[in-house]
């Protein structure tokens, strides 16, 4: 059975830090914790400014904070890169096209498994 990652891990990182939703809201510059709750439940998508604030608070990349969403988007981008690659391969090869093909191949390559945090000692 394949289980995809959760779309975001904001709650996990917040609970790990021991902060309450209101405290995170204060750090993010929101009025109250209800916005944080909506971000965690995925009923509201944070603005770029808020996302960068989250990155600063928890010290992890946005890819880790939004693992599931990141994975989904990166798969879509890879698919598009493969399509573009196919189009370029049908064209006459010059130095510029070859350079583009090399770049697109790197995008389309399967991703290496990433470290999602410190492993437990148990």
């Amino acid at each position: 059975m394949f289980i995809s990652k959760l779309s975001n891990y904001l709650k996990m990182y917040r609970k790990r830090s021991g902060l309450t939703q209101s405290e995170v809201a204060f750090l993010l510059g929101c009025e109250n914790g209800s916005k944080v709750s909506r971000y965690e439940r995925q009923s509201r998508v944070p603005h770029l400014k808020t996302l960068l604030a989250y990155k600063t608070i928890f010290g992890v990349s946005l890819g880790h904070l939004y693992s599931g969403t990141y994975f989904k988007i990166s798969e879509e981008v890879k698919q598009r890169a493969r399509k573009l690659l196919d189009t370029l391969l049908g064209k006459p090869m010059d130095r510029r096209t070859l350079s583009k093909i090399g770049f697109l191949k790197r995008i389309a390559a399967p991703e290496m498994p990433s470290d999602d945090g410190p492993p437990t000692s148990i």
Partner: protein
Amino acid sequence: MNRILAIDPTPRGFGFALLEDRPLRLIDWGVVECRRGNKEENRGKRLRGLFQEYDPSIFVIEDCGRKTSRRGHATRRFADEIRLLAQRVHLPLKKFSREQVKQAFALHGATTKQQIAQVLADGFPELKPRLPTVREIWQSEDYRISIFDAVALGMTFVANEGSLESVGA
């Protein structure tokens, strides 16, 4: 990757822990207390809420049906409710007895609830603030211990099964 939702039913509600393997990490944990209104209905509602929020791949609970289990009727009924929910959503359910949990943690020299909780708090530092102090013989069990019981059930599943093939997923 498996997402394991371990539930520890208590007379007041339940403790829960959500774990992911590969890499092994604790995603969420807590105690749900339902004291007002229709307790059983509220408990079921909160459980379904957790299921909808996290979309787990397996449920893990304590085997309350055993003769050696010291769980009350209400707690056993809730365990049955979890079993029915798992059936309805076609999710595997794995039960472990207290003895199996103790066996899993015996390697770490932990046999009592408090010792197991201490091992878990060492492994998952985020649980340290929730670790209750050692209780005296005249004191009741701290409600937070059900978080550790739930995590212990989840970890027993990880240690014993590792993969879902063995539970027929």
